[in-house]
Structure formats: structure tokens, C-alpha cells
């Protein structure tokens, strides 16, 4: 029954690495979502034209890494929109990869696979028909 110390240590290390991987991904999603929401708020603020200080009617102050730069509103909007798209894609990507990682971790822990994890979702219209 007794196992060598090396084996146990290796196993624990492997386990920790897998768990760390899952946790990092989760935290990354949160961070990305934070930025997504900040951008969203910026976009609405620009669209509402209320926060513009006098003398900068069609320009906006944009903070680039600790420095404020005056950029035209149009290009700011374009930049933000592009950023949003990128963020959305990143989040989606992380989310689709997460289940596989969680399953790997559970496998390493000796737990059984989560059921229905690998299913593709049913479209909302079909779900409505089922009324569950």
C-alpha cells in the first residue's frame, strides 16, 4: 500500500497544476469581463455626450497606460468597439475550453466525470417546447 514519497509529491504537484489552471482561467474571465463592462460604460458615456468638458466638443480624453490623450470621438468609439469584440471572443474561448480542463482535474482527483458536461446546448426554441 505504501507509496514512495516522490510518487505522492508528483501526483500532488500535477493535481495542483491542473487546479491552478482552472482557477486562472476563471479569474481571467472575471478580469476580461471587468474590462468589458468598463468599456461598455465608456461607450454609453460617449454616446450620451454629457461628460465632454468644454472646448472638446468632438474629442474625448482617453487614458492610454496612465497618460491622457485627446482622441476624436469617432476613432475612440471604433477602438472601443473593436476591443469589445476581442474581449467577447476571448471570454467565449475560455468558456468553451474550461469544461475539458475541469473534467481533467476531476479525473486526476479520481472523481467521476460530470454528467452532461460535453453536451451541446439545445436551442432556446426547442427548450421552450419542452417547458422544463
Amino acid at each position, binding site marked *: 500500500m505504501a507509496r514512495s514519497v516522490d510518487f505522492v509529491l508528483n501526483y500532488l504537484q500535477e493535481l495542483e497544476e491542473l487546479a491552478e489552471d482552472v482557477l486562472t482561467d476563471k479569474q481571467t474571465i472575471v478580469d476580461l*469581463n471587468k474590462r468589458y463592462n468598463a468599456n461598455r460604460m465608456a461607450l454609453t458615456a460617449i454616446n450620451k455626450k454629457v461628460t465632454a468638458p468644454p472646448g472638446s466638443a468632438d474629442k474625448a480624453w482617453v487614458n492610454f497606460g496612465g497618460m491622457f490623450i485627446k482622441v476624436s470621438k469617432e476613432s475612440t468609439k471604433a477602438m472601443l468597439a473593436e476591443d469589445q469584440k476581442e474581449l467577447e471572443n476571448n471570454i467565449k474561448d475560455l468558456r468553451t475550453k474550461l469544461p475539458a480542463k475541469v473534467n481533467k482535474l476531476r479525473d486526476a482527483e479520481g472523481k467521476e466525470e460530470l454528467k*452532461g*458536461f460535453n*453536451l451541446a*446546448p*439545445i436551442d432556446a426554441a426547442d427548450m421552450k417546447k419542452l417547458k422544463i
Partner: protein
Amino acid sequence: MAATTTVNKVQEVREVTRLERIGAHSHVRGLGLNDDLEPRQVSQGMVGQAPARRAAGVILEMIKEGKIAGRGVLIAGQPGTGKTAIAMGMSQAMSRDAPFQAMAGSEIFSLEMSKTEALTQAFRKSIGVRIKEETEMIEGEVVEVSVERPATGTGAKIGKLTLKTTDMETIFDLGQKMIEQITKEKIQAGDIITIDKATGKISKLGRSFTRARDYDATDAQTRFVQCPEGELQKRKEVVHTVTLHEIDVINSRTQGFLALFSGDTGEIKSEVREQINSKVSEWREEGKAEIIPGVLFIDEVHMLDIECFSFLNRLLESDMAPVVVMATNRGITKIRGTNYSSPHGIPIDLLDRLLIIATKPYSEKETKQILQIRCEEEDVEMEEQALAVLTRIGMETSLRYAIQLITAASLVCRKRKGVEVSVEDIKKVYSLFIDESRSTTFLHEYQEEFMFSELAAAGDATSMET
């Protein structure tokens, strides 16, 4: 005092999954096998019947691996040898979301439904479909909600909603529709809400724990929820397991969803079933659904007639069939609805497709152990001697009779303010309630004094023929 009792109650709460009354087999918690499928002598409420339990365990293992869907198992044995107990054990040991449907053979016969319909429904109740629902939603605690009316009185309202999770906080500008919903749902600071992204529907989950002390007079029904963690824009995945029958009922238009609860489903059109079958197999091909073949248990299977048996043959061959476990206590007897005799009252062609597990009568030691388990289950304390007497009774009459005496004897014992059931109590109830063999001898002796006795003597011959 009240507080202490509630505390005790909380500790007592067990996970109630299936029906948990003190029923005849409520002491059965599983098949009592170890990891190598070797049966332990006394375990999980099962006693003895080692070969039968091992066989059931092997079958269960095959079911779990999805290997023997569409095949049948027959548990055969004398009355009172634990056939239903083994079936119950199998149901307890099955994986949680695989459906286990138990029915008695005579349930098939009803005026409202044809026999084949009842059988088909039972079959479809024991096949599960696993599907996943995915919703994109915003979930958070309301920090602040403000709705401003324009000074002119008319025109669009302006609203702002601040939401937070444990990790982040953000402000949303609200449109006209959202403001309406928020006023309708009476959303205020401190509520935990979700907003469905596809429909824009706002639903209130409860109040935040941190706001629990905002008002002293909170309603007892107020639900307190932990502030959500992580990101605001979430993707929720919910895995549902439904049975084919449930989908049938929901989609049979005349009845609708409510029929599931009223139980009055009536007959379901075969077109509906075909449509559902094709839809489900379509989902399966697209990787959207998994079929989980469950177990259909038919007790007293000899009560089915020849038509049902041939229909069973056909159902077992369909591509979405569950594992059918049947139990019977008959020997070689007539198949119902025919004049032909067959082993277990089941046609040979069906019997040929079944794996047969035999149960044997319990030994004296096993009987004692079962009685002991039942005493524990029914919270009855019994003297060692009384148990020995009861075991004797159980051996000479039947196990069921002995088990029934337990409760009766404990009542007698409580009447005389005793703590432990004694031999006297057993004797008392033994004289109060006669068992089947004593009843028969009594009837044989005094038959002439009963009503219609002369008819019975002559009618014996005719009743045998029908």
C-alpha cells in the same frame, strides 16, 4: 425548548430522494456488495441470497456500462424469498439520474388505457434523456437603482442600475422597457437579480445577506442569498434529465404540461411518439442529447397475459429500450389468456431472451437477521428470547407473517408499558392474528358452518377450469 427541538430536527434531516416511509422494503439501501461484487453476508439491509445478489450486481454493472439495454432479467423464486428486495436494492444502487420505474403486473389492466398503451408508457418512463440548456445572463446584487422623470412630466424616463458581484461593479443605463420591469418587480437596492440576455426578463432571486439587517420586520418568506461571485455576464448551463414519457405528455397537445401532475394522461397518439423519437435521435446525432436507458421493474409478471408478452417481445427489440427486470413467484403454470402451460407462466420465446436469477428460501439464521433488521427499521426493541421465538414462527409459517407480528407485538408491549418486546407479547399477538396455515386448517375443520360452503365444494371443479 422550541429552539433545541429545531436544532435536533436539523441534525436529523437526511437526504430524502425516493419514498422513505417504513414500507416493507424500506430497510434495503443497496445490494450489499463490495467493490469486487462479492456479496457481504449482511449489508445494506440485505441478508443471504448471495448468488442472486451477486448476479444482480453483475447485471447492474452491465447496465451502468450501457451494455445490456433492451434485454430482460427474470427474478424467480418462492414467495417471501426477497425478489422485490433485490429489485429495490438494484434501484438504490443505480446511478442517480438513471430512471427506475417499478410497476406491478396487474397495473396494466385499466379501463382508461389499453394494455399496450400502459406497457408503452411504462417503457418510456424508464428511458431518460439528458439535455443541456444554456442561457446567457447578467447576475448581480443591486447596489443602486434610480429612475428619473423628465422635468416636463412627459417623455422618456431615464434610469440607471448599479450591479455588483464580489469581484466587480458596473452601471447600466436602462431603457424604457427595463424601467417598466424594474418598477413592476419592485427591484430595490440589496436585491439579487438575474437578467436573461435573450429575453431581457428580470427575475429576483432574493435579498443579499449583507442587507439582512436593513429592516427589523422582514417577512419570514424573504429569501436571503449570498452576493454572486465572479463575472457579471455569466453563462449558465443546466443539465436536465427527463424521461421520454415526460416529453410525450408535454407534447400531447390536448393535455399539456398539467397532465404530468394530475396523472391523467390518457392515451398518447403514436404520431406524437414517433415525432419525439425522431427529434430525440436528431438531437443525439447532433450531440445535444444523451439517452440513458433505465430499468423497468415489473413485479408479479405472471399477471400479464399472452398479448402483453408478445408486445413485450416487440418492445424489447426497439432501439430505445430499457432493461426490463421481472419478478415472479410462479412455477410451471398456465400463461394467462391461454391454455398452455409454461415455466413461470411466461411464454418460452420470451423466457429465452431473459437472464434468470433464482432466489432460495432463507435459512433460520438469515431469517433471524432479517427480523433483527426489521426491528431496527421499525424502532422496536426486542428481547433475545422473543426474537428466537419469532424466528421459529417465521420458519414455520412465513417470513412476512413474522415481520407483521413485530409491529403488532410492539403495540401490545407499549400497552402494558413495557420497553422491550417479550415472549409474552409475541404469544399474545400470535393468538390474536392467525397465520395462513392455521386459517386453512380452521376452515377445513368448520367449513360446513360457513356460508356457501356447499357451493364451494361443488364449485371447486368449475373454478379450476376458468
